[in-house]
């Protein structure tokens, strides 16, 4: 399998993660197996230890109860032989030559009594080397034997002891087999775990790859590309959904941009075309008055063009938060009255009535130029859309914290389709002759002043602009500019 996997596979996250998780899994399961093995080994040893202790007690009793005569040694020897033979068979009753038992009885004034395999000297020497507590089995290494014996001691009289030793080869075999199976089992588990992790991760990361592919498609200009998110709600599915949402937003913005460029093309190219055409005709016109007329109309078109550009730039700055407000304390009542006076005759001329209710003095910190244009935009909006014979009402008042400017009319109101995105760029009604920037500008300026603009239909159109009386320059980098002036120019 691995031969078919290309070299780049070893650089994938799937491979790395599989490797890591396998190592952790292998270490953890190895620890578990080790603990299990130690517990089993202990249980096995305890079994033989308890036999040793019980048998040594029996031998001790036999030794003590047997009279100290010529038959003593013989009887003890017999009993010990019996004891050694007791474990000399395996569970099936066959003689197990591997199980080896020895018995030693030492005493101060007699040579030790020895029952066991081989030469007793090595055993006695090993026993002398290590001091044994009574009834406490220990492992004892004996010269000439490759494996240690479990040995237990039993005290009789001072200077006289009984030692019983056992090498339980059956248990040893059992344990070594167990160890082998544990290792094999562990290897199988680790191997299977490795492949399961590898397959699972590859599947998971395959879905990530799908997202990468979709993203790459976008790089080549295909915005319709989407990722199958599936029905799950895991991390990758959420990533896929987030990615799809992002794509939706991007394609919406791109579409908006397309609309914008279309609008720019319309708003800029149309006047340019008409100016060019008009001037061409003027150039070849015989009648001087006629050509003058044409040139004048060309200039008017250019003015319109210039106005669109100015508004677009202002709006771009306002929306981008790049507007540097030059706030000053201004009596908005006085400014508004001046603007209303400017527009009042225009309303009258259209048969519209214009009612103004302005509080005596409304002092607030605003950018004069921007706020004036906000007002004129609102007025021009009413002029254009309130309709003939409409009644336009403007109120300006303030409480302790905010200025509230309300412009309403009893005209047809905003088209319902427009109401939701009235304050967006290039939002304009089907009947509109404007460039669709005016209301966006109103909202952008209100927001730049930390205020808001809202629109609704209330027996006609109603727009409310609210801005705080005091402008708090917190987080407004633009405020550093005047300070820089003062530094530079004293």
């Amino acid at each position, binding site marked *: 399998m691995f031969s078919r996997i290309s070299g780049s596979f070893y650089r994938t996250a799937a491979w790395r993660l599989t490797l890591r998780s396998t190592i952790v899994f292998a270490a953890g399961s190895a620890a578990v197996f080790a603990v299990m093995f130690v517990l089993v080994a202990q249980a096995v040893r305890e079994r033989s230890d308890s036999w040793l202790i019980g048998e040594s007690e029996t031998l001790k009793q036999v030794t003590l109860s047997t009279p100290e005569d010529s038959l003593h040694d013989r009887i003890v020897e017999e009993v010990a032989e019996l004891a050694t033979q007791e474990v000399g068979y395996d569970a099936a009753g066959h003689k197990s030559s591997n199980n080896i038992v020895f018995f030693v009885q030492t005493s101060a004034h007699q040579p030790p009594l020895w029952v066991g395999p081989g030469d007793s000297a090595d055993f006695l020497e090993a026993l002398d080397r290590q001091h044994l507590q009574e009834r406490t089995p220990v492992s004892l290494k004996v010269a000439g034997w490759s494996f240690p014996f479990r040995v237990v001691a039993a005290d009789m009289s001072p200077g006289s002891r009984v030692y019983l030793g056992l090498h339980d080869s059956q248990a040893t075999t059992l344990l070594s087999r167990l160890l082998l199976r544990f290792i094999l089992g562990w290897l199988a588990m680790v191997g299977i775990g490795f492949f399961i992790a590898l397959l699972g991760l590859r599947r998971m990361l395959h879905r990530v790859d799908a997202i990468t592919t979709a993203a790459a498609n976008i790089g080549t200009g295909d915005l319709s590309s989407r990722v199958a998110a599936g029905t799950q709600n895991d991390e990758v599915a959420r990533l896929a959904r987030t990615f799809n949402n992002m794509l939706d937003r991007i394609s919406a913005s791109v579409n908006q941009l397309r609309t914008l460029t279309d609008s720019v093309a319309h708003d800029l190219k149309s006047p340019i075309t008409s100016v060019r055409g008009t001037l061409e005709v003027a150039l070849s016109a015989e009648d001087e008055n006629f050509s*003058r*007329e044409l*040139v*004048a*109309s*060309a*200039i*008017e078109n*250019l*003015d*319109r063009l*210039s*106005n669109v550009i*100015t*508004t677009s*730039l*202002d709006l771009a*700055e306002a929306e981008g938060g790049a507007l*540097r407000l*030059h706030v000053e304390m201004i009596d908005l009542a006085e400014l508004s009255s*001046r*603007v209303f*006076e*400017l*527009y009042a*005759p*225009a309303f009258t*001329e259209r048969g519209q009535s214009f009612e103004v209710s302005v509080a005596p003095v409304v002092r607030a910190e605003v*950018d004069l*130029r921007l706020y*004036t*244009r906000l007002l*004129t935009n609102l007025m*021009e909006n009413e*002029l254009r859309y309130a309709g003939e014979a409409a009644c336009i009402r403007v109120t300006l008042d303030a409480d302790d914290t905010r200025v509230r400017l309300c412009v309403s009319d009893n005209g047809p109101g905003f088209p319902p389709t427009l109401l939701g995105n009235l304050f967006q760029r290039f939002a304009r009604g089907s009947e509109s002759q404007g460039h669709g920037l005016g209301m966006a500008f109103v909202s952008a300026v209100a927001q730049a002043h930390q205020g808001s603009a809202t629109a609704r239909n209330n027996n006609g159109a109603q727009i409310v602009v609210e801005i705080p009386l005091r402008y708090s320059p917190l987080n407004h980098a633009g405020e550093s*500019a005047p300070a820089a*002036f003062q530094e*530079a*120019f004293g």
Partner: protein
Amino acid sequence: MRLLVVEDDDTIRDFLTRALSESGFRIDACALASEAEALAVEGVHDAMIIDLTLPDLDGLQLIQRLRAQGVTAPVLILSARRSVDERVLGLESGGDDYLTKPFAVAELLARLRALLRRSSAHQPETTRLRVADLELDLIRREARRGDLELVLTQQEFALLEYLCRNAGRVVTRAMVLDHVWKMRIDTSTNIVDVHIHRLRNKVDREAVRPLIRTMRGVGYVLKD
């Protein structure tokens, strides 16, 4: 009157030279700040028109250098930058007035004349303005056309006064908004036309010879 025009755009420099020459000014024109400096220090110019974006030096720095060398002629700044920042910076740097592109020649001329007036000896304040048979009493705020007393609102009087003060010269809509309503705004609507129309109804209705004329594409002029 001799003017120095510093503008790196050939088209604009040529049209400025032509338009200003036609209005009776003598023009020295150059494209570089270094040339401008050499010309300006001679001290022969009555006013300077300086574009802010020059290839070799920022227009503001040029103005500062000229002022530092004792050149006192008034400076009219031309710029494509529209922000208040720029306007303030320009005036702080020693400019006397500021005009953003695109602009009407009429407005350029008006601002230039205002600058030249300001720099020359102070003219006595007039209390009366007279154009043909139109007469304005600036103290009593009264206007007469021949024998006929004109009933004007405050705004109408201010508008008529502005036209009379510039009698014979074209004023643009932007200039009217700036001087009469104190608003520096662009408007694409006919808002100023409405006021002019109303004023004309009062001033010219009974008269044989109309005084207020519309220069299509440019603005208005009040002349005999």
